[in-house]
């Protein structure tokens, strides 16, 4: 991969430089203090070695001034690291607008990716360079974790809810990704490659790849076959149940007067546990779909509800054209 013997992994995302900067800062602090303490200790140990078995050195009580000094200096340094680290972390976990969304399902011991255009991949993720990518992740069994060292990102995939992470690759190439949360027997085999391509190349890949129904379209079929339309309306316009048109990304008032944001987690919860958050003005009449849909189907339903939203453009500005019905061809 890289030349000879690197000490830091490849840096290939917009975040990795920031993380490295914090890393080098703390490394500097660590090396400085370790060297300082070691040198002082070695100096004292040699300078004040016992020269005479009977000597008793003069007692020294201590000094509040010094104690204050060496409490405050580490505190200031620690706080500077905290502030810097928190700033970068905030950026790392702040989901960006206009990101290309990829749905990820982890299960023992493989990763399934699905692009919003319908292409599916296993243990390999193709993405364009210079484009914000948001992974919306679910697990079918235990806790997994998507860790891409070259991008300096990592997030657990926790069963029972959605987690997400985002990145923007800066260099085309093939990068390792790993499952970083121990998940059982084949944990160390549960990884693969993130393939970063030039946008044109990526488009080429998209169109050259076997494409299934887009998640939103598949979600619409689920929506119809599960009979959701009878309450939420054939096009999500609402009825006995709340309208879904324009729902995603909006704020929903509940019957206990609380307001929640309709995000992926909210839609998911409303399907699996409809009683948890009941929209103001509606009755608790919806049955639970727990056990009737798996994580992938849930993600498709979520994608469908998302596609009904007008408040949030589903397609980012630089997104390649949707090719829902291209000819099947040999996989990449």
């Amino acid at each position: 991969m890289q030349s000879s013997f690197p000490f830091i992994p490849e840096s290939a995302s917009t975040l990795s430089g920031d993380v490295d900067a914090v890393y080098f800062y703390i490394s500097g602090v660590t090396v400085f203090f370790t060297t300082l303490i070691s040198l002082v200790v070695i100096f004292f140990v040699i300078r004040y070695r016992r020269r005479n078995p009977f000597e008793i050195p003069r007692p020294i009580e201590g000094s509040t001034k010094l104690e204050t000094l060496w409490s405050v200096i580490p505190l200031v340094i620690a706080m500077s690291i905290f502030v810097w680290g928190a700033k970068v972390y905030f950026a790392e976990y702040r989901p960006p607008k206009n990101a290309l969304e990829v749905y990820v399902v982890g299960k023992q011991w493989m990763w399934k990716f699905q692009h919003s255009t319908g292409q599916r991949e296993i243990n390999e993720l193709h993405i364009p360079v210079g484009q914000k990518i948001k992974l919306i992740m679910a697990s079918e069994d235990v806790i997994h974790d998507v860790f891409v060292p070259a991008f300096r990102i990592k997030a657990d995939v926790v069963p029972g809810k959605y987690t997400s992470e985002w990145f923007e690759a800066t260099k085309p190439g093939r990068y390792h990704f790993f499952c970083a949360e121990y998940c059982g027997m084949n944990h160390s085999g549960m990884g693969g490659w993130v393939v970063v391509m030039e946008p044109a190349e990526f488009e080429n890949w998209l169109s050259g790849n076997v494409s299934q129904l887009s998640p939103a379209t598949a979600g619409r079929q689920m929506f119809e076959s599960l009979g959701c339309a009878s309450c939420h309306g054939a096009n999500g316009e609402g009825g006995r149940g709340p309208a879904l048109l324009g729902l995603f990304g909006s704020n929903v008032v509940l019957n206990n007067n609380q307001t929640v944001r309709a995000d992926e987690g909210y839609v998911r919860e409303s399907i699996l546990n409809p009683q948890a958050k009941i929209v103001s003005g509606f009755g608790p009449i919806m049955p639970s779909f727990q056990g009737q849909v798996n994580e992938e189907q849930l993600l498709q339903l979520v994608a469908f509800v998302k596609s009904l939203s007008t408040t949030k453009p589903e397609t980012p500005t630089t997104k390649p054209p949707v090719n829902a019905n291209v000819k099947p061809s040999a996989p990449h």
Partner: protein
Amino acid sequence: MEEFEVPRPPRTNYLNAEYGVKSWLLTKDHKRIALLYLGGISFFFFIGSLYAMAIRLELLTPQADLTQSSTYNKMFTQHGIIMVFFFLIPSIPATLGNFLVPMMIGAKDLAFPRINLLSWYIYMLGGILTIYALLAGGVDTGWTFYTPYSTTFSNSYVIATGLGIFIAGFSSILTGLNFIVTIHTMRAPGMTWFRLPLFIWAHYATSLIMILGTPVIAITILLVAFERLAHIGIFDPAAGGDPVLFQHLFWFYSHPAVYIMVLPAMGVVSELIANFSRKNIFGYKFVAFSSLAIAVFGFLVWGHHMFVASQSIYAGMIFSILSFAVAIPSAVKVFNWTATLHKGSISYDTPMLYGLGFIGLFTIGGLTGMFLASLATDVHLSDTYFIVAHFHYIMVGGTLLAYLGGLHYWWPKISGRMYPEGWGRFSALIVFVGFNLTFSPQFVLGYMGMPRRYHTYPADLVSWQVLHVLSTAGASILGVGLLIPLIYLIWSMRYGRIAEANPWHLPGLEWQTASPPPTQNFYETPIVTSEAYEFAPPEAKEVVGRFERQRPVKI
């Protein structure tokens, strides 16, 4: 305290007061119980080390050539469980602490001798149950038992192991309870709080964590066992439970547990640094209170294990800033130890070598903790070898070194014999070199992205293998360095030079009685009139020059 009379070598001491297996298994003497613990802990350490060697050997190459994945997963799990719950947590408190807490405060025994013996039996029962689980088929959840893997998906002996840990937890609780009550109610006349040796302060702080944290892990493990047994879903997302709640409850104990391991080590090192440089500790009160501060702050930071575990990012920030706060009392300790050396009379005996090694390694271990407290870097580093390296610097470089240092230091008191000094220094050096070679490459590996708990790793990353080979080489050296003391300490019990009552010429109360001490510790209850680590007689304070020849310390 310098005017103590020379206690004549006693005809009977705690070792030969009674004979026979029964006299040991039913003893209520804290010193004998400490030796029982020493035996148990050494056994578990040996088992844990074997697993460590097997893990290191497997990682020599990227492929799986020594073990299968399932075996490897069991190896690192069992290494972790045995080392954490059956070695590190009881190591210093249950052996050195048990032996010395009453002696250092001038008491005849701990407050509840029966409970003390009971705690050993509980510990052994928990240990045996865990060993049974290992022999029956092992457990593969990682020592962290994360749900829902441990509750629903693992096909290994989770319940038996969990019960073993649950039971052993009570031993820890009872030890902590005994220490707290003893330190509060049984100090000798004149032994005020600020005359206590720092070893006692450290054990007091440790005991606080033991009694406040351990019950939470106990109930958590019990809930996991029930969940597994009866398919009830408190941590199971399928039933509406939350797997992250398990992590909160688990780390509420298991992060402070790190301080259960390292605080007593700090206590030992405070003793070593002060006594082997014949100086009172610099800033005694700051060091004492920093132990308490670490115990309290240690409970406020557990969420830094969960920065990538889908915890709220705001909670993450709270935990991050609190984690940085723990750095301060730790830094204060390191600075004070260093300052204590200033203008001291520093000897190069084996215990001091371990003590000095501790300062260096703990400094590295502590400072690398900042990479993990800092949110941005933690996201990249968590669950990688960087973490593995970091906590081994704290637990092996810290706790194990201090444990060995303390064992050498008090060996004459415990066994009545001296260990061979030359071999002692030699093995201390080997341990130091081997340790660093084992774990420093892992920092680099971690930043390179090598995840922990990996059986195999990509073969295209040549530098990873180079680092793993270095680490394994270091582990072999470390292993040798640990075998040497095992051999010569056992040898010295029979053939070592007979120790004086106070071979290091020190003022601590434990040295003012015979070696080995009589069953009642002291021939008569000592009355304390001087501060801790007071080497020079008070009236001589003014006249003692730095390196002037003084009258010998009276012993």
